[in-house]
Each structure stands twice: as C-alpha cells, then as structure tokens.
C-alpha cells in the first residue's frame, strides 16, 4: 500500500479555473518527493487536496488506503490529526505564544500535559526557537515564523509530512538546514512531499521530482 496516490485528479475552482487536470502519481511509504512548477501551476491546490481542504472535482486522492473524497467530517478530522502540514501562508495564531502554537496539535489530539510540553520543547529545539517559546509570533522574523510553522507540523510525529514552500523567507543557509531536517525525518521513515520553487535545494538528498505546468503533470523522475 502506497502512502499517497493521486488517480486522474482534477480540480476546477468555482470561478471556472482548472488548477489541476488529470494528475496521477503515487508516493510510496518513506519516499521523499519534491513538487515544483511555476507560480500558479497548481502546487498548493494539489497539496491541499491531501488533507481534504479542497476536494477533487474529478478522480480520487487516496491517503494510507483511504479515499479522502469519501471521508465524513469526523473522518477528515482524524486524517488531519495524522498528517503534518506546513501551509504556504503558515497559519500561525498570533494571539498565542510560540509554545502554545506548537502545543495546539497535541491539545487537539488529547495528549497529557506533561508529555505534550516535552514534545513541544523538543520540536522547538529542533528548529532553533526554544529560547523564544514565550514570544508571540509577531515578534518573530519572517524566517523564524517559517520555522515555527515547521515545528508545529512535526510535533505530532506524523507519518506523512506535507510542506508548501517551507523555505520561503529563509536565507540559503537556513534553507539548507530545513532541507536537511526534512531529510532526517525522511530518514526515520516519514513520507515527505515538498512543494518548492527551488528544487535544487533538495537535490542532494535524492528526492523524486514531480513538475506541474498549468495544472498538468509534465515530469516525474528522480532528481538527477
């Protein structure tokens, strides 16, 4: 069973725009995939269909054997709890501290407070924000906010990690750190799918390449 399978998926937005058309591909468990393409190619749309934020208008998206399009409300909630997602616009909560932002997925999953706090600190440490745990996101620089979003996505130890341009706003040095971090998640068995305009960044880690162009899949190959 693959971790993720797209099966002739199309997404037409109400406005009439077909952001994704006839896309089929498969991601095996423990694989690392880089999704690239021009701005507006449909990368975010494609990624948003995995946690059922958008539903495909045609075809099927299958995550861990479940057809996402057929899930009920409660099924969607459970699915999301088991994914790690880094959104393109980060979706941080500006009225909660750095610590509480990372705590949120654990609170939702119902972790005991002590264990949750331990995990939050571990995740913050990994992205270099442990010292800022009491700060509010507004006091973070763009790159720090990006790292906060990453910490929140991985705190739950998801088996599938989805990242939409996780290295935007990061200088090359930090971007490499982040890529390295994803690589290490991948190394312990996490399936990773990353959309990025900068596919070269992930090249050293032997990620598979998927390229979109105007919603269509044009390339699917291992990074050279």
């Amino acid at each position, binding site marked *: 069973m693959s971790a993720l399978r797209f099966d002739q998926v199309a997404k037409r937005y109400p406005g009439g725009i077909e952001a994704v058309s006839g896309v089929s591909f498969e991601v095996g468990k423990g694989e690392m995939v880089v999704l690239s393409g021009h701005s507006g190619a449909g990368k975010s749309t494609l990624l948003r269909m995995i*946690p059922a*934020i958008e539903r495909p208008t045609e075809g099927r998206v299958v995550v861990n054997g479940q057809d996402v399009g057929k899930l009920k*409300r*409660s099924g*969607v*909630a*459970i*699915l*999301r*709890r*088991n*994914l790690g*997602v880094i*959104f393109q616009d980060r*979706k*941080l*909560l*500006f*009225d909660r501290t750095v610590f509480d932002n990372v705590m*949120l*997925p654990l*609170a*939702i*999953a*119902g972790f*005991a*407070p002590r264990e949750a706090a331990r995990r939050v600190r571990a995740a913050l440490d990994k992205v270099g924000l442990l010292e800022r745990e009491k700060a509010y996101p507004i006091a973070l620089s763009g790159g720090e906010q990006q790292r906060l979003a990453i910490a929140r996505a991985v705190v739950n130890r998801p088996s599938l990690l989805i990242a939409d341009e996780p290295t935007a706003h990061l200088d090359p040095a930090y971007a490499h750190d982040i890529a390295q971090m994803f690589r290490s998640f991948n190394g312990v068995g996490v399936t990773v799918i990353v959309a990025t305009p900068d596919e070269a960044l992930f090249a050293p880690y032997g990620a598979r390449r998927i390229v979109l162009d105007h919603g269509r899949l044009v390339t699917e190959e291992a990074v050279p």
Partner: protein
Amino acid sequence: MTIGNWLRQHGKACGAAARRIAGQPVNTLLSALVVGIALALPAGGEMLLVNFLRLAQNVSATPQLSIFLTLDANKKDSQEIDARLKRHVLVRDYRYVPREEARSRLKQTEGLAEVIDSLPRNPFPDAFVVTPKGESPEQLENLKLEFANYPKVEHVQLDSLWVKRLDALLRLGQMLVTGLAVLLGVALVAVTFNTIRLQILTQRAEVEVSRLLGASDAFIRRPFFYFGALQGLLGGVVAWVLVLAAAYALARPVSRLASLYSFNFALRPLPLAESLFLIAFAVFLGWLGAWLSVSRHLRDIEPR
C-alpha cells in the same frame, strides 16, 4: 477517549473561556450588565406581581357575603342568625358587624365622614359578613338566596366588584410581566447570539487553524458554550443584585401607597429558590444563545 481525557478537555475549554472573559474585564462587565438588566426586569416584575398576589389573597381571595338586617331587628334577632350561621356547613367564617361599627367604618370612606356625622341618627342596620366555603358562582348564589330567607334579613349582598377590579389589575400586571419576559428573553438570547457570533468572528483564525489540525467539531464548540454559559452566569448574578436593589428602593414608596389604601404591606424580596432559578435560567439562556450562534456561524468557517 478516556474519562480523564474527557474531563481534561472540558476543563481546558472552560478554563479557556474563563480566561477570555477575565482578559477583558470592562467588556465582560458590560455584557453582564446587559444580560443582568434584561433578566432583572421580568424578574423584578414577577417579584412585584407575586407580592401583589399575596396581598390580594389576604384581602379578598374568597368573595364574601354581607347580610344586612332590617332596621328594626333587635338583639334577639341577631342572635338567632348568629346561631344559624354557626351551624351552617357551607360557612367557613363569619363576623357580626353591629350598626355602630358599620357607621364608623363608613366614616372612614373618603368624603363621607362629615356627612355621616351630620345625619340625625345612625342609618345603618346590624350586619353579618360571611366567608363561605365554596367559591363557585352557583354555590354563592344559592347561599345568597338562603340567607335572604332568614328572618329579619333586609338584604344579602355578594361582594364582587372588588374581586373584579383586582382581577382586571392582576390580568394587566400579568400581561405586562409576560410581555416583558418574552421581549427580554428574546433580547437576551439575541445578545448572547450576537456576542458569540462576533466572538467566533474574532476567533476565526483559531477556529480555522484548529480545523486544519484535525480538531473535532465538539473540541471547537466547547469553549464557546462555556463562554456563553459563563456570561449568562455573570448576567444572572447582576440581575439578582439589581432585583434586590429594586426591592430596597421600592420598599418605601410601595408601603406608603399601601398605607394610603389602609393596607399594612411590606415588599418581600425574591426568595432563595427563585433567586437560584433566576441564575440557572440566565446560564441556560447564555448557553442557548451560544448554541444557536455556534450552530449557525461555526460551520461557515472552513479552512482554505
């Protein structure tokens, strides 16, 4: 989910709501004031009505029959009637009103004192005031006929105008209080509904992000329910304080008014049971408003 987990989740939601409320003291106070005022008015009206009913019951819960003897009736005639009334199974109570008492009572009626004094002799007969056991109109009518056939009885009168007046007044009062309660109940639910709606809007990001991270509907709704209920609780307490204050403020003028009607009457504040009910009701309304608002507005917030 284990029970400990369930308790923890509720505790957290309640705590979050309480923190949100405590974090904005001025606004919380204002909301509580609004809810309190809205609740205090029908509660206060009800208090006045209950007091009034109590008064009314004392004064003339059951109608009375007045038996007037002829002017030439003497002591013996009165004793005869007294004896008959004493034996009568349908008479709960009765009182002999000698002609001298009738005269002095009428003197208390406004504008009549001097007229009465100016009369050459007491124009009143001896009388009996009877409180019957039954209250149905036919029973009373039968009693009236029976008493009228007693010897030396000039006339029997059924006291009913007073009852009618009181009834009309009470009906008006009840109508006002009910109208008030309905209007203000609606206002209250509307206020909570709106407060929660806007609360949801201001927490839109939080709701959206929680959804994205896989929070269940229950998880998201819970803090809003607690918020509504807590706001209701505060409002209920304010309402209770207001009603108490009103009882104090009104005590003077009400008893003055009562004394002008020759009643001895003191306003009683809400009893404990009703105070508790008031507060529980406030909590319920707050919860209801939250529920309505959440049902209507929370689904709209879908992550995108």
